[in-house]
């Protein structure tokens, strides 16, 4: 059910990106899609009543140099978190580039409405 709600968020973003005709709205739609995918990835790794994948002194056995079983059986999946960290930064980069293209286009055409930005024909 939570996955479905998360997917609904993705679909709202997709809807916004394909249907709206304002450039900033399209960017907003892509940003929403990005959030939804990130959230989905993190949710995949969640364990009920889990702990963060950061080794604490209480989870570490200094005599054997091993992490304790408690940690192993309660930590959430660290791999999706690493992936999301990457994808958040990619999203920020895309946002910056897209906004600069928008601003530049606004300067040229005087509008954000993509139906009026039609110098190229289909």
């Amino acid at each position, binding site marked *: 059910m939570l996955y479905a709600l998360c997917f609904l968020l993705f679909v709202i973003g997709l809807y916004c990106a394909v249907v709206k005709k304002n450039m900033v709205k399209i960017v907003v739609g892509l940003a929403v899609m990005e959030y939804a995918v990130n959230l989905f990835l993190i949710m995949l790794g969640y364990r009920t009543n889990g702990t*963060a994948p950061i*080794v604490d002194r209480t989870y*570490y056995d200094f005599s054997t140099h091993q992490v304790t079983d408690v940690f192993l059986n309660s930590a959430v999946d660290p791999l999706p978190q690493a992936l999301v*960290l990457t994808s958040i*930064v990619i999203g*920020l980069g895309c946002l910056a580039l897209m906004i600069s293209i928008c*601003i530049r286009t*606004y*300067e040229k055409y*005087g509008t954000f409405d993509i139906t009026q930005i039609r110098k190229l024909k289909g």
Partner: protein
Amino acid sequence: MKGMTVIVKTISSWVKVLIFLFGINIVLFGHLTPGGGFAGGVILASSYVLLMLAFGREFAEKNLSLTAASRLDCVGALMFAAVALVGLFYGAASFFWNFIHQQYLADKATEFKLVSAGIIPLCNIAIGLKVGASLFLVILLLSAYRINVSTNKKE
């Protein structure tokens, strides 16, 4: 429009230092606590953004000019690539090999110390530098960009 009121300027000149130190802290302890190069770098950039908002763009540019920020961006990226490449050439090992940890620290009990994770803190510093410089650069650019629609539309 040369920045905001005196109150804002005074407070932000103090807060700026705190934010900057906090960013450095996040970057340096990224391998032990939550955070890391990216989060820390963004915080470093936001301390400059605060400066820019409170004192005006010219003042911020005096501290870190566009060219300098752009070069810092490249240097940070190069540093990161260099750390990766040193692993490649260090004893004919492998690209991105954590050579410091594997060679020197693996047998010593350095858990939870600052100098513990080999190249990871170095990478964090490089990324922090790179991210901070580049995000400051893009915000500076976006604020510096003046849109002159009117001249363009009346053709």
